[in-house]
């Protein structure tokens, strides 16, 4: 059964088709990667799924409900977790409070919030930074904080927009581990540029090019597909 299903999603900006007639089915428990070259419309597509961008046409069904007309906050409250491509945190608040704000919407009671926050921070390895001001964290740590805020909401669908951008190699490995742990319990939609991450963690890959779906398949098929290589991967990278 699909947790998220999009039919005929289209976004037009003044005559420019950013996303054109995209149909997408994400079954429950799947880790789906969304890849494609810069400007392929990945962030626009995810914006329409999460409610940040209003579609020009098409419908979005989430958890058996038509959410097309819902504002973003209502979709999030219904169980979508969203992390920003450009880090968007509460810089002047502590790391702990950042995650607590994410947790408190779904969890109530002081000790439950505390547990949810601490476990999210532990999972991304930021627990030792809990009382620091979020703006003082390094860039990579801010990315991890974004992910922790996503985890703390215990979403049904976790949307990660380029989560590993700017992470060090060790942190990327830890991130892969984290997603593998989530797999099965949380459905994940991952926009990712790092092909190693895509190959390691995703169950299924959607390739977007010029606003349209170019190819869909399991990671190995994507690797082997000639059209994808031409559009995106480049010969050398695909072989790696």
């Amino acid at each position, binding site marked *: 059964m699909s947790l998220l299903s999009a039919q005929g999603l289209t976004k037009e900006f003044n005559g420019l088709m950013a996303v054109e007639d995209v149909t997408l089915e994400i079954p429950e428990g799947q880790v789906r990667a969304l890849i494609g070259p810069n400007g392929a419309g990945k962030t626009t597509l995810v914006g329409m799924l999460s409610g940040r961008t209003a579609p020009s046409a098409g419908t979005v069904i989430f958890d058996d409900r038509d959410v097309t007309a819902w504002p973003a906050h209502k979709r999030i409250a219904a169980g979508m977790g969203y992390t920003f491509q450009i880090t968007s945190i509460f810089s002047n608040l502590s790391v702990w*409070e950042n995650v607590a704000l994410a947790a408190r919407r779904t969890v109530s009671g002081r000790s439950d919030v505390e547990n949810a926050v601490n476990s999210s921070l532990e999972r991304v390895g930021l627990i030792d930074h809990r009382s620091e001001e979020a703006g003082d964290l390094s860039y990579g740590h801010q990315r991890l904080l974004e992910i922790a805020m996503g985890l703390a909401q215990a979403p049904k669908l976790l949307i990660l927009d380029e989560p590993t951008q700017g992470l060090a190699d060790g942190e990327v490995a830890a991130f892969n581990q984290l997603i593998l742990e989530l797999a099965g319990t949380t459905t994940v939609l991952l926009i990712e540029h790092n092909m190693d991450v895509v190959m390691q963690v995703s169950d299924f890959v959607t390739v977007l090019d010029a606003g349209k779906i170019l190819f869909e398949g399991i990671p190995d098929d994507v690797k082997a597909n000639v059209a994808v290589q031409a559009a995106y991967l480049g010969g050398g990278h695909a072989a790696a």
Partner: protein
Amino acid sequence: MSGDMRKSLLLHGGVLVALFTLQFVLPAYHHGNLARIMVLASYAAGYNLLFGYTGLLSLGHALFFAAGLYGMGLAMSQFGAGTGLALGGGVFLGALIGGLVAVLALRTEGVAFMIVTLMFAQAGYLTILYFGAYTRGDEGFVIAQADRVFLGQDLSDPRNRYFFAFTICCVSFVMCLSVVKSQFGKVLVAIRENEERARMLGYDVAKYKLVAVVLSATLSALSGAAYGLLFGYVGASFASVQYSIFPLLWVLLGGAGTVLGPLVGTAFMFYLIDLSSGLTTAYMLIAGVVLVCLTLFAPQGLLGELRRRFWRWLP
């Protein structure tokens, strides 16, 4: 109870105890001033809920202050309401107007929000002048001494007046502290810090802002109604743009987003003008220079600076 919370309770409780005690030692002149400051500080505290904690800069709060003032005064002069009812009526009118303004003004943000709130306040001011037959326009009207008796206490008596002002001040303290400590208050701060992020955490930002405006308007109206009652005068000057700018100044000086800031800022500004006008007729020059210096060297206000340097836990 966490250590920070204990410190915060001690500090704010201590300030209230000091305010309570001061009435027994202050000479009559300062005694009257402090009563005035406490009521105006509650107005500033109401403003601070919106500006300091939610990050919405309104230039029209005089509308809410005047709604309380006129709601109370007109209820007495036109409908013969008793003191308690009139006070309640003023607060209710403030909350109602707050709700109406919020629904319309919150469709805008940033500079547009400032302008829209300013325009609403001007419309309110002109409405008061227009209905001069009831409001007596610029001239205003006096609340008869017989109407200034609340719970058997004559509020024109300085001691009672001080005590009532102190009570209003306590109400505003408790209200602000409980908002700031609540989950609701934490979401307001989140909206101030990063509205888009708060929305994408699933919070209905529009609803939170609406409630913040209504709360802020209600506390401002309470302060306006109390002011009219305590000092016996209701006039259109309290609805003028000047009274929208005052709370902004007081809050900026005292420290936006701190519970004590409004009180400190109001007292500071009050005595700055009071003392400098004793020295020279060009007192606004002195006040201006001091304000410029404060903005330069303590941009987060007096309490904001204290928090930055020493008291990180200050709510």
